[in-house]
């Protein structure tokens, strides 16, 4: 569903509030279908906010965004999809491991996507966010 929307209906994000609304419905879906996903997002948020000079907020296209001194580290959509920017070399290295994929919209960039489906993947998402954080701190 998410893939269909981002591939074929991505123009709708230009409609004010549309992407937020879609993310709100993803939260509702998660609440009934996979409530633990919402708990993992809280745990990730709590952990990231322990890192120095980080803040969280709402991403412009919906979801939870993490920032380091105002710069985006990454964001998690409410279906558990983590999108974040890494350097191209780190992305290439991680892609070889096969756990992450290129960003669902921004191809040929350092942006990556990673679905959080179980608790191990939640931990891996935290590792990825840490990499993104360290990239910005340097």
């Amino acid at each position, binding site marked *: 569903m998410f893939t269909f929307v981002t591939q074929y209906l991505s123009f*709708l994000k230009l*409609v004010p*509030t*549309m992407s*937020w*609304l*879609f*993310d*709100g*419905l993803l*939260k*509702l879906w*998660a*609440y009934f279908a996979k*409530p633990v996903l*919402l*708990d993992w*997002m*809280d745990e990730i948020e709590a952990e990231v906010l322990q890192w120095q000079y980080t803040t*969280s*907020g*709402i991403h412009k296209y*919906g979801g939870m965004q993490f920032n380091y001194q105002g710069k985006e580290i990454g964001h998690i959509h409410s279906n558990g999809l983590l999108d974040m920017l890494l350097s191209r070399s780190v992305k290439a290295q991680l892609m070889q491991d096969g756990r992450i994929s290129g960003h669902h919209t921004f191809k040929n960039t350092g942006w990556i996507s990673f679905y959080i489906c179980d608790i191990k993947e939640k931990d891996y998402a935290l590792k990825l966010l840490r990499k993104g954080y360290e990239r910005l701190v340097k």
Partner: protein
Amino acid sequence: MSRKNFLTDLKAYGISNLFAVGIIGINKYFIVDTHANADDIFVFSEFIITPMLMGIISAWFWRYSDLSSRGLTGKSFLNGCITIVLASGFLGEGFICLIIVSPLLFGSIIVGAFIGRAMFRRNNNTLNISIVGLTLVVFAADSLSEHHYENMVSDTIIVNAPPQQVWKNVVAFKRIKEKNKFWLFKIGMPSPVESTVEGYYLGAKRKCIFSNGYTFDEKIVTYDENKNLTFAITNQPRDPEIMGHIDIEQGQFLLKDNGDGTTTLVGNSWYKLYVFPTWYYDTWAQSITHNVHLRVMEHIKELSEVK
């Protein structure tokens, strides 16, 4: 649940819903009406901004509750359910209407609650007042803007019969006995079942009867035999399910002789929407109109193809 938490929830649900009822009531006085159905117009702000503000208001009551995302989503869902019950009671909305509106309501209330949580965590009053102020400005601007939307839906099928045979079934047709396929018709939305006409001539009165007994009164305004039947809707029922939110203005059947014993049958409907945003409601309107067309046109096809 402790008594304190229960009271907090009660305030969050009560005040946010009271706010919504109040603002929708006030809004009715400000909507600029260029048409007859002022009371029927529901604008973008009422479906998106108001529920978002409801979410923000409820988040304000829960600001010391330290709710998890799961808890906030669940409570916002319950808040949306209360709103839907109130909409049914105060606005007299039907079951189908509430199904159609519920994704907008639930999504917006949840978004509002999470925006509110982020706002009150930061505890920046200037920012918070700016956000709420901005949404109220958007609300006022939307309410004071003119709202007018018309559209047309067209469908085509091939009938394996010549136009002369199809024509009589286009002007009027016997009761449809085929079971409904469209999910909204299956769960209770009225669907067309029969069409009657007082005569085969220009100006004749026609009736389109729906499954719940409601009747659309029509008048034939173009009678070009075997080619074009156009009818104006002169009176339509005020069914709480959809009527009042959409007016069907005109219907048309065009027949094209394919020269091989078949006919291309085109069904067109023109309608006016009174609910906004159209990017949401027109998607539903098109889907419903399309399914009304297909139900009638497939019946006409079946009747016309009987040897």
